[in-house]
């Protein structure tokens, strides 16, 4: 058994740094200082019978210090069968306070600011994570604010809680699940809010200098404005 474990550990000598086990949740550890990674997101939104919309994001992730990483999302764009649309670009910082393996609880704070044509967006996230050996338990609390339209007069907010769990079968492969609970607040008014609930499985594979993580979510509420199904793939490459 130890021989098998030793072999598995040796074979990941070129495994990807900063690999993600989840696609909708962020993990507490930050990238190693001096590391550069390219992460590509593709999210498909589906109705019962066909796809509705495809969203893409491309991110350069940079490890700045042992506890701080920065990212630039240089293109957030979408395709909805009718047209390709460039939506926005954004920057992100994640600061890690405590470690999910060495401390009682791993905590990080995430801030993203984005802007596009007549749109500005802020996303703040608290990330809590605990590792029990090969088991990762994760929680994200997110506050999102958007300003849109002429003079950025249209406002909207969203509160989101997400939990995730995954088990690393070996250093290359993990299986798990993600659950999202979001409250959408048009114009920040509780009376107009929608509450959505999504849940589904994920799988992650880490290769030599790359990783791919896939999540499929089903909507368990009946919100007409939200897709019944969505699938997200993140493909990352070490630079």
């Amino acid at each position, binding site marked *: 058994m130890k021989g098998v474990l030793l072999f598995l550990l040796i074979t*990941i000598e070129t495994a990807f740094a900063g690999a993600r086990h989840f696609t909708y949740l962020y993990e507490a550890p930050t990238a190693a200082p001096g590391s550069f990674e390219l992460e590509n997101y593709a999210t498909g939104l589906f109705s019962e019978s066909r796809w509705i919309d495809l969203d893409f994001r491309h991110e350069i992730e940079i490890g700045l210090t042992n506890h701080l990483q920065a990212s630039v999302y240089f293109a957030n764009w979408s395709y909805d069968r009718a047209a390709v649309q460039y939506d926005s670009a954004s920057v992100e910082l994640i600061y890690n306070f405590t470690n999910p*393996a060495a401390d*009682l609880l791993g905590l990080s704070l995430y801030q993203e600011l984005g802007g596009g044509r007549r749109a500005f967006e802020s996303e703040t996230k608290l990330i809590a994570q605990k590792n*029990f050996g090969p088991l990762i338990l994760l929680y994200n609390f997110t506050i999102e604010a958007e300003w849109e339209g002429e003079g950025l007069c249209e406002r909207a907010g969203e509160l989101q809680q997400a939990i995730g769990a995954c088990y690393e079968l070996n250093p290359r492969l993990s299986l798990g699940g993600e659950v999202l609970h979001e409250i959408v607040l048009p114009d920040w008014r509780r009376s107009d809010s929608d509450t959505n609930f999504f849940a589904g499985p994920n799988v992650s594979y880490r290769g030599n200098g790359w990783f791919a993580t896939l999540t499929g979510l089903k909507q368990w509420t009946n919100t007409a404005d939200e897709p019944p199904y969505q699938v997200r793939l993140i493909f990352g490459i070490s630079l």
Partner: protein
Amino acid sequence: MVGSVLFLSSCATTSFVPPVSSILIERAQSDHITAQQLADGRALFATRCLECHTLPSVTSYRSDQWPRLVSRMAARANLTATDERSVAAYLRAAAGP
């Protein structure tokens, strides 16, 4: 409930990333490793290794196996030669005789 989670968290921390105790310091003395180097090695093990994969138990391998494993993965974890020595020394001491 919260108490149970904290207890389990504490056990997981001790099992997978044991703190730098007097026993570990004593074990590392024969390699001329200081307590500070062990503490640095522990911090690096917990952060850099975790970026790629969850952490194996320090007793999963013998103390003489760890330096080779750390050396093979040092480049991926952006470890300097000094970092690599600290991580290997910590794992050797934590793995025990």
